[in-house]
């Protein structure tokens, strides 16, 4: 019984939100500017084992999932970029914690437009600097203070 409830809970959002051939999501404005190669792979600039592993995982995710699935993350920077930035700026302990928090916030169906300021590319602006536990680095925009 419980397993079937969990199955249904997983199935409903998958069916309601997944991209299909017959009902596609709204078109995203595509920029044809050549992207900066360094922004695609931030961590490889630092040559150590931990960052190398994270960079490798991120590249695997980017190649097999992100590139195929499209630009679907509602946040800017996207969750994968947030992960890479968090680790490069805050290290291997704080970085994953920041990512775990971001991942849960991304799962929230009711994030709403008032929770986050809207970036000029039309996504919720949620920079890494706000989550380093350093008050001086917090960026506050006029559209809200992060509350629901």
């Amino acid at each position, binding site marked *: 019984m419980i397993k079937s409830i969990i199955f249904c809970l997983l199935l409903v959002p998958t069916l309601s939100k997944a991209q299909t051939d017959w009902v596609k999501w709204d078109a995203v404005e595509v920029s044809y500017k050549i992207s900066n190669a360094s922004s695609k792979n931030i961590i490889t600039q630092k040559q150590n084992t931990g960052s190398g592993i994270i960079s490798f995982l991120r590249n695997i995710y980017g190649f097999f999932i992100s590139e195929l699935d499209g630009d679907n993350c509602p946040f800017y920077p996207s969750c994968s970029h947030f992960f890479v930035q968090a680790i490069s700026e805050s290290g291997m302990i704080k970085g994953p*914690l920041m*990512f*775990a928090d971001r991942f*849960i916030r991304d799962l929230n169906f009711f994030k709403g437009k008032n929770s986050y300021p809207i970036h000029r590319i039309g996504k919720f602006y949620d920079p890494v600097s706000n989550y380093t536990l350093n008050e001086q680095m917090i960026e*506050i925009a006029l559209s809200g203070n*992060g509350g629901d």
Partner: protein
Amino acid sequence: MNRIFYYSNKLILLLIMPMFITYGDILCQDSLKELDLFSYKSRLKFGNHLYLEKDYLRASYEFREYLKYEDNDTIRFKFANCFYNIGRYLEAADNFKSIFYNSTIQDESRLAYYKSLFFSGDFNLFRNSSRNEIYLPEKYLSEVNRLYFTSFLMDNSVLPDTANFISAFPDSNKNDIRNFYIQKKFPQYKSPTTAALLSSVIPGLGKIYVGNITDGLTSFLVTGVLTFLAIDNFNHKHSFRGWLFTGLGAFFYAGNIYGSAAAAQIFNAGVKFNFDNNVKLYFEKRNYFLPENNL
């Protein structure tokens, strides 16, 4: 006959025209010599024109040249005010000092000196000057006093006594000032430690405490589902899956504790930002309770 008359007219015109051009130029040059654009009086006129046009930087150059030849309190004031208007407040304060004595506008210049110190953002310097009663304008003591108390709302200094603070402002604004005072003294901050502790007891509770209710509920659901899956798999002897879900659950549990503390900090930064913004807008709208500068 007519033809001869016609050509003679043309000839005369040809002779006269160069004369007009030559002498006209000479006449103009004479009038320009009389005007002398670079005399100190012309510089004053041009400086005043630029000042009225709010081109303060160029006006200051003209006033500086003028003041080399003639001393004038009003121009000294305008010269200093040029720096004030272009945001070079410390330079303005220095120049206002030159009219502190033996002048009919010494009180105005002393008030302008205090205004310059205030808007320079160096509130400690402003308060020290005010507290030590250096160059206080007798005519504008209440204005400087108001600026003195306003400065406490704009930085992180310890607030002075309530009664003195509020009594410095007009009766019609006392309620607003009292509200600002209370907000500054007792800001509605949320403790990051409390948020983290609450999330460690019940996942997501810290986020709800901060006001991010849906984030809190999502955290609770995610952690709860992962914990259930871990227990269920251990009960069914699936130890690999059990440990996998345990690891994921612990990861999100720890992330939620961290995120709750971060959310509390973001909330506090928002409260501070809104307060600073409201104070700034309130006082700007009322010109910081200062008289209009008529010079």
